[in-house]
């Protein structure tokens, strides 16, 4: 407990530190990290509110811009975008009946009904307060579990790491929507994409075909922007939009005493469920909100009201998605394994700044580690302020048509990908991945497993080769070491459970609502 407090105060010290900043030729002293946190939360809310622009594409777009920032500042900002998007997404869901983010799909159901009954303000503040509570709990869990989990991770050898990555990747697809086998194939494709470039062990250039730009491998930003950014723009353009915005009906923001009573338990349940699902590989915000909604529907006394504007249907999922957004940082920061596509991008952001994600970050870079955690807590507080009193501004944003928005996305992507290496080759690569991503969408293949595979590919190959080198080519090494065996059994169990007919139909039903 005392070390936790000491650690947190290191974090506060890092976030609140004043640094000189030059603007218009004048140098002033400012808490810059706090400012990056605010900018991240602001951008997160913005993209959360705007449908058709998700955190994956945005973080990919802004990754290059964080080169110019110090590592802590850059990571604080990117993290802010992710959890900020969870707040913003609910605004669109409630006011327009369109999910601003996939994680707020279920909020549409009851949130929008509340808005139609003139209780939009109450729905918005329920979402924000629930999110704030869950965010605080999630951050505390992250701070408390980080140290013990990292200690476990230090005991891992290459065989354990390989099995952990197998479990992570399998978990990611089991919990994701759509066809299981197609998702596994996408992972394998991603792993293969990660192989392109120079082999670290032998120096042999693989699949580069004498193209010098490919010697260092495919740019991670190019894949993320192409598959998520460009492909999304093209699919969005094919759909004609229809929006009915409750702009002038946002009155009486404050929930009544009865509302508070009714939202208390769902917020708690949502927070617990979200925190657990966030840690699991493949978990994260979207799954958590779905889970919380079904849970509330089952246990609530007012289950008849669900679908007609039950406050529980807003409080539960909104708390869950924010709790999950925070706790999904746990596997990334302690084990170095990203549990979802956004965290995969964070791995990219960390490697750009020469930080190898994993258990050693905490000891080698304590200010960065604890600073990031503290920034999340402060960021959540900022988000409540950003979202409740300033709701009017976000609502106005909803009236910006998509035809102004998507050229901006393209422009930012072009600039972003070019500045990674100042190379136009990367721009062409992104366009190629855009086409590939579009084909994936048309064929019902998801991009997230591909990205996870791509990020984990080199790490996985390295650990695979090293374990077999140590065991002199004996494949049983993965099954004779107890931790490794346990992880592989867990992965196999996950696949089996999902393949069971009764669960299979339930799973398909759950994703049908999307």
């Amino acid at each position, binding site marked *: 407990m005392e070390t936790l407090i000491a650690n947190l105060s290191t974090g506060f010290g890092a976030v609140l530190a004043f640094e000189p900043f030059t603007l218009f030729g004048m140098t002033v002293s400012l808490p810059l990290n706090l400012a990056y946190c605010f900018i991240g939360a602001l951008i997160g809310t913005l993209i959360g509110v705007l449908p058709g622009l998700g955190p994956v594409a945005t973080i990919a777009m802004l990754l290059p811009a964080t080169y110019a920032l110090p590592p802590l500042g850059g990571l604080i900002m990117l993290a802010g975008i992710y959890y900020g998007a969870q707040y913003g997404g609910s605004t669109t869901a409630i006011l327009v009946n369109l999910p601003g983010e996939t994680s707020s799909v279920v909020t549409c159901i009851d949130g929008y009904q509340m808005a139609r009954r003139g209780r939009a303000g109450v729905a918005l503040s329920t979402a924000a307060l629930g999110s704030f509570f869950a965010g605080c709990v999630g951050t505390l869990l992250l701070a408390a579990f980080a140290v013990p989990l990292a200690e476990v991770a230090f005991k891992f050898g290459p065989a354990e790491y390989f099995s952990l990555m197998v479990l992570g990747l399998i978990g990611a697809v089991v919990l994701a929507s759509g066809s299981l086998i197609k998702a596994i194939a996408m992972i394998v494709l991603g792993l293969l994409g990660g192989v392109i470039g120079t082999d670290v062990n032998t120096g042999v250039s693989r699949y580069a075909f004498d193209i010098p730009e490919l010697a260092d491998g495919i740019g991670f930003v190019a894949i993320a922007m192409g598959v998520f950014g460009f492909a999304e723009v093209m699919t969005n*353009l094919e759909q004609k939009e229809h929006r009915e915005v409750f702009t002038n009906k946002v009155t009486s923001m404050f929930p009544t005493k009865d509302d508070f009573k009714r939202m208390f338990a769902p917020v708690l349940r949502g927070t617990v469920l979200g925190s657990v699902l966030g840690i699991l590989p493949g978990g994260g915000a979207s799954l958590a909100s779905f889970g919380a909604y079904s849970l509330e529907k089952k246990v609530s006394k007012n289950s008849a009201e669900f679908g007609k504007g039950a406050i529980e249907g807003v409080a539960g999922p909104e708390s869950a998605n924010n709790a999950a957004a925070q706790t999904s940082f746990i596997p990334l920061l302690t084990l170095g394994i990203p549990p979802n596509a956004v965290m995969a991008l964070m791995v990219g952001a960390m490697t750009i700044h020469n930080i190898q994600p994993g258990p050693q970050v905490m000891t080698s870079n304590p200010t960065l580690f604890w600073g990031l955690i503290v920034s999340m807590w402060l960021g959540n507080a900022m988000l409540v302020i950003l979202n409740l009193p300033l709701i009017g501004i976000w609502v106005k944003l909803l009236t910006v048509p998509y035809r102004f928005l998507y050229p901006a996305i393209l422009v930012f992507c072009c600039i972003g990908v070019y500045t990674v290496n100042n190379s136009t080759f990367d721009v062409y690569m992104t*366009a190629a991945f855009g086409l590939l991503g579009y084909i994936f969408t048309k064929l019902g293949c998801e991009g997230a497993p591909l990205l996870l595979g791509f990020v984990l590919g080199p790490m996985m190959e390295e650990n695979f080769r090293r374990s*077999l080198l140590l065991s002199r080519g004996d494949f049983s090494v993965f099954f004779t070491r107890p931790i490794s065996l346990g992880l592989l059994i867990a992965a196999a169990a996950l696949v089996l459970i999902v393949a069971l007919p009764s669960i299979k139909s339930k799973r398909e039903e759950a994703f049908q609502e999307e």
Partner: protein
Amino acid sequence: MHIRNQKDFWAGLMFMAFGIFFSGFGTRYTFGSAARMGPGYFPTVLGIILIALGAIVALTALAPKAEEHKVAKFSWPTIFLILGSVVLFGALLNKLGLVICLALVVIVSSYASHEFGWKATLINTVVLIVLCLVVFVYALKLQFPLWPTFFGA
């Protein structure tokens, strides 16, 4: 032969094609043994796994009880305009500079919208160019060729 699930069928073929590509070219690199893996080991094995997965996906799509899924039409004009504007940016950036290239991206891509209008597009172009110059060039100090090379500099 009637293909019931066309989405899965083509997805399966796509996976197989990628698998053949990676395992085929993988044989060019040293394979090695399990204890001393060469650079070709991992990609070749994964490529073969991908071929197998693709085959399963494609074959189950042909099964008589497979669900009917058609592949939605590709909207070629959209693809052409959106990706074309990006390629244009890449091709012309070093010759024409950032400002003109940004204008090209915005105008060409805006044309893909079914609500395209010249006036709105031009306003959007100006706004975005100013925003990019302020954020990326002035504030973040990223290096770009700003103007065409034949204008001085």
